[in-house]
Structure formats: structure tokens, C-alpha cells
């Protein structure tokens, strides 16, 4: 069991190195990000912060309960040791969340998080292969087809927030939901696809990028249509702001697609991530980022597509 965790630690460090970051710096960065997340949470929605932490912890633990992973642990270590491993894994993940709750004197929630971690470690998410989540994007695979199926509950949540925004007469919150839909769409482009799925296209790199960008703009607009329509009807006088939100989301989506292919076939590395953060924090930097990513993408796609 000790060797198993040593191997997990080594693998995690390797992932950070592949991402272009020194592991020591990575752990410091992760700690900083977690503290920042907690501070922001308590500052913005203090009342719901403990429950949000419980939810975030459960989400972080969920991938560890996949069927494939559980089957591997079961066949390799046997039932008893597999359960021990899973409990320890979940407890390690829950530790920062539980400590945060204890520091904020939320003893009940801290107990819940520990209890949930133990119980969920013994559960395997098998998924139901016979049930296929319907998607309006099945004609244009694969980013939106798969992405929609992974995030449909988030999209539903964003739509619900739009309705709440209208009910409480908060246009800013409504505009944020439009941007949120675009951010969800951009997340579909966060990982590079297998090179076979670029190679199969009978297109030049330029045409390939144009195809990908146009598909994304069309699909993301369709996905953002419910909040756009609702806000346009309820706040027609503020249509310019709504259009600005759509434009901002679209521009970030395009930047994300180009950023992905600018690193292709490798994943988005540290330097590209910093540029993407810069685009989010300082939007005018997109004027530099888009052409830079575009020309890098053309070069990176040349080995897989005919020029």
C-alpha cells in the first residue's frame, strides 16, 4: 500500500513537470489557489461557503471512484486493501477542506465531509451505458457532443441562475451567466485530442482552424441562446451590454481553441495558461494573443494536415 501511494505521488509530480512547473512550486501554487478560493468563497457567499466546500470536495473525489479504476484496484490488491486505499485517498483529498471547516468552526460540516469521504470511497460509479444523454450537438462531434454530455447539469444550473437574475432584477448576474456558458464551452477545448482526429480531416491547417472556430462559435451561441433571449426580452434597453457579453465570450472561446492547437499535440502548458489568464484579466491582450496563437497553431498542425 505504501508503494502504491509513493507511485501516485511520483505520477502527480510527473504531471506537474509535464505541465512545465516544478513540483515544489506546484504544491505552493496549489496551496495558494486553494487559500484564494476559500477566501473568495467566504467573502462572497459566507452563508453557503461550508456547503460549497463539501460539494467541491465531493467533486474532487468523484473521478477516483470510476469503474475502471475500482476494477483495477480490486483485481490488483483484493477487496480489503482496495477499500483501505480508497479510504486513504479520499481522506487525503478531504483534508484541506476539513481543516478549513474546522478553522472556521464548522464542526458539523467537517464531520460530514470526513464521513462522506469514507462512505463515497466504498462506492463505484458504474454509469449506465444503455442511457445516452440526448444532445443537440450530435451532428458536429466531438467537442460539443461529449462536452455537453459532461456538463449538461452545469448548463442547466447556469440557465436557472439566469432566471434568478431576472427575478431579482440583477442584470450583471445575468450577463455573467452568458459569459459562464462561453467559459463552459471553452473548457471543451482544454485538452488536445488524439492526433488521429486531426489527421482524418481533408483540410489545410488554415481551413481546419476556421472550421473548428466557426463550429465552436455557432454551437456556443446556440448554447448561450436561452440566457441571451431571456435577458434581451427583459432588458432590451441594455442590449449593448448583452452584445458585449456575447462578444467577450466568443473572443475567449476563439482564444482557447487557438491556444489548444498552438501547443498541439501536447497539452496546454504553463506559458500558454499564463497568456490565457492574462486574456481573462486584461482583455486587450487578446490582440496579441490571438495572432500569436494562430500562427503557432498553423505550424503545429502542419505535420498532421496537408498545407
Amino acid at each position, binding site marked *: 500500500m505504501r508503494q502504491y501511494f509513493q507511485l501516485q505521488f511520483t505520477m502527480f509530480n510527473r504531471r506537474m513537470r509535464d505541465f512545465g512547473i516544478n513540483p515544489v512550486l506546484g504544491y505552493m501554487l496549489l496551496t495558494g489557489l486553494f487559500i484564494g478560493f476559500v477566501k473568495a468563497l467566504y467573502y462572497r457567499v459566507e452563508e453557503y461557503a461550508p456547503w460549497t466546500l463539501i460539494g467541491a470536495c465531493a467533486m474532487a473525489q468523484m473521478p477516483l471512484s470510476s469503474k475502471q479504476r475500482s476494477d483495477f484496484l480490486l483485481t490488483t490488491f483484493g477487496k480489503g486493501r482496495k477499500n483501505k486505499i480508497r479510504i486513504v485517498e479520499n481522506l487525503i483529498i478531504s483534508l484541506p477542506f476539513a481543516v478549513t471547516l474546522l478553522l472556521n468552526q464548522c464542526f458539523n460540516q467537517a464531520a460530514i465531509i470526513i464521513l462522506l469521504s469514507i462512505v463515497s470511497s466504498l462506492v463505484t460509479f458504474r454509469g449506465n*451505458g444503455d442511457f445516452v444523454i440526448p444532445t443537440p450537438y*450530435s*451532428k458536429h*462531434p*466531438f467537442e460539443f457532443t461529449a462536452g455537453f454530455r459532461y456538463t449538461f447539469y452545469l448548463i442547466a444550473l447556469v440557465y436557472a441562475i439566469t432566471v434568478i437574475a431576472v427575478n431579482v432584477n440583477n442584470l450583471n448576474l445575468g450577463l455573467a451567466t452568458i459569459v459562464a456558458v462561453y467559459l463552459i464551452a471553452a473548457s471543451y477545448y482544454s485538452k488536445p485530442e488524439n492526433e488521429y482526429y486531426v489527421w*482524418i*480531416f481533408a483540410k489545410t491547417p488554415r481551413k481546419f482552424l476556421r472550421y473548428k472556430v466557426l463550429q465552436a462559435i455557432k454551437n456556443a451561441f446556440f448554447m448561450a441562446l436561452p440566457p441571451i433571449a431571456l435577458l434581451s426580452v427583459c432588458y432590451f434597453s441594455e442590449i449593448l451590454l448583452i452584445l458585449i457579453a456575447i462578444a467577450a465570450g466568443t473572443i475567449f472561446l476563439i482564444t482557447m481553441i487557438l491556444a489548444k492547437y498552438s501547443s498541439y499535440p501536447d497539452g496546454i502548458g504553463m506559458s500558454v495558461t499564463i497568456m490565457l489568464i492574462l486574456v481573462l484579466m486584461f482583455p486587450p491582450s487578446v490582440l496579441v494573443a490571438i495572432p500569436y496563437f494562430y500562427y503557432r497553431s498553423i505550424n503545429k498542425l502542419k*505535420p498532421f494536415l496537408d498545407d
Partner: protein
Amino acid sequence: MIKITNLSKSFGKKSVLNNLSIEFQRGKICGIIGENGAGKTTLFRCIAGLESFDGEIVSQLSPLKDHLGYLTAEPFFFSMITGKEYIRLLCNARNKKLPELDKNNIFDLPLNLYVTTYSTGMRKKLALLAVLLQGNDIFILDEPFNGIDLNGSIILTEIIHRLKELGKTVIISSHIFSTLSDTCDEIHVLRHGTITQKVTREEFYLLEKEMKNSAVIGKIERLEL
């Protein structure tokens, strides 16, 4: 036709293909055999344009990759994608209209289910079906029989024969000799990164005998069972 001349490929200091020359004729089925790590997949990837290389690969079809159906040894599938959506993706990529899948689904695959729920053999069949429906002129089939059941293998053998009749070029690699002897017009032996032997149909039995001898003799005894 594909003509490969002096093809060399190295990964770092490790040379995988070494001045390899070979020709694949239109309307012929060519088998490539070689031990694990002999360079079969690297050769296929070079033909497909997925690897950079030294040497020359020439074809009358230009660009070659847009006329090539490449079935990889272990096809990759996205999760949360159905079989139908996968076929649509591959056809869209080659600007080919989605065919009538009810009619074309010769392997009776559950195309409306997620590919991740498919067995290994079903995945291979799906990848093969998609490559066939793309309407390619040249086919590279890397271990096409792996994981496929008996019925599927019979159908696949017939498909390969039909492709030949249609004048297509088919290049196959397989570790199961009988599947190659059933389908191929010629077999090329790949050793140490180069083609060391070309054997025609009449001499297949000799090649099989030779391979059995070199593979088995003295090795089982070393296990001291």
C-alpha cells in the same frame, strides 16, 4: 500505388526504420509481418504522414493522407460519443455524407450506445466500418483481426477480398499468419527496420514453416516446465 524509397526513421538515437524500400500496387493486398517492435506501426504512421521521416514516399493520389483509411492497432475513442456519432465524425472529416447506417451496419453494432460500452472487438469493428464508409482508395489495416470474433473475421476477410476487386490498395499487418495467408497476394517481412523478404502466395507455406522454426526451436525448453 505507393512507392517508398530509402525510408528511415529514428526516435532519438534509436533507429526504427532503416533505408526501407517497398512498393504497394493498386488492386493488391500486401501483408507486413515482423516481431513486436520491428517497426510496422512506425512504417504505417510514416505512410499516413503522422511521423516525419527521411526518404521518399510517392503516390499518384495527392495528398495521399486524404485517400487513406488508416485503422490503427488500438483505435482511440472519445468517451460520451456514440458509435453513430463516431462514424459521422470520420465521414464529415473527409467531406463525405453520412451513409445509411441501418443498411451499412454490417457488424450489427449498437450504434446508438456510447463507444465506451463496446467490447474490444466491437470497437475494432466500429473503427473499421468508419474507415470503410469514408470511401478511401488505400487502406492500412494495423492488426485488423485482433479481438474480432469468428463471424467478424469471416466478414473482414470477405471485405478485404472485395476491396481488392474494386482496385483498392490494402496493406495489412497481423500476428496471426493464417489471416494473412487467407487474404494477401504478397507478404513482406520487416526485420531490424528494413524489408528482408518478399514472399508471394505460392511460397507462404515455406515462410510459415521458417517462422515457426525460428520462433520456437529451443525456446520452450528454456522455460524448464
